[in-house]
């Protein structure tokens, strides 16, 4: 069961990273970009339309991760400890704190995307979206590496 939930956690994280990256790049546009290059097409999206999806995906991904966290503590963390891989444990523990950073920002993030006119508070919206995008990317990459750590080691 935990493996199924871990896969679901990974899949929702993939959807989340796609949504937040579209929005995170589009929020830094000063004016409508020409859409010749792939990157320009990628960021030429209406960012506000992603806000609800990002909130739902973040909470879903977080909840799935939190549900399987005790299993990690009992199995994976114990194995890492016995192998003396303290730095890997440190990185995973930091991943959990970084996940809470994103969780704490969700309320303000949703407020500035959905309750405030888009021409106001641009700087705040950019900061919130960028921090959220950074937390999601960091946790996706670190989570993936840590999940495969036995294969790497």
């Amino acid at each position: 069961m935990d493996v199924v939930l871990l896969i679901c956690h990974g899949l929702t994280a993939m959807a989340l990273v796609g949504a937040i990256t579209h929005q995170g790049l589009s929020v830094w546009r000063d004016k409508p970009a020409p859409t010749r290059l792939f990157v320009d097409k990628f960021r030429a999206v209406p960012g506000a339309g992603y806000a609800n999806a990002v909130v739902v995906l973040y909470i879903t991904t977080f909840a799935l991760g939190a549900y399987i966290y005790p299993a990690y503590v009992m199995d994976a963390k114990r194995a890492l400890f016995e192998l003396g891989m303290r730095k890997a444990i440190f990185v995973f523990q930091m991943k959990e704190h970084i996940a809470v950073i994103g969780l704490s920002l969700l309320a303000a993030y949703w407020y500035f995307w959905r309750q405030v006119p888009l021409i106001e508070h641009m700087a705040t919206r950019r900061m919130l979206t960028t921090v959220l995008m950074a937390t999601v990317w960091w946790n996706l990459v670190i989570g993936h590496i840590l999940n495969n750590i036995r294969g790497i080691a």
Partner: protein
Amino acid sequence: MSRYFSLRIFSLAFGIVYTLAVVYKWPLFYYFPAVKQFSLHDLPLATFGPGMSWFGWIATGALAAAIAAVLFPKLLPKRWIDQMPPGVFWLVPLAMLAGGFFREQEWLLK
């Protein structure tokens, strides 16, 4: 909604109180995965296995933030909340990161 519950205050207070909870070890409760049991107190390792504070830290932060999000809009002038500098949404996550590093640095020490 913002008249009764400030989403901005909730976010900032959550981050600040979570950081304090992590640094000063203020979990609202502990979870012991070996016996699948919650407790308001840290229990003996030999009997109950390792205790998890993370859920309790989140609960501490969320509960305090919910109270702050209800009270602050009533206590503070509206323009103070409206004129909140955008930089606070960088500073609070940085403080959270520092708090997490402070708590977990033991894993980097031999």
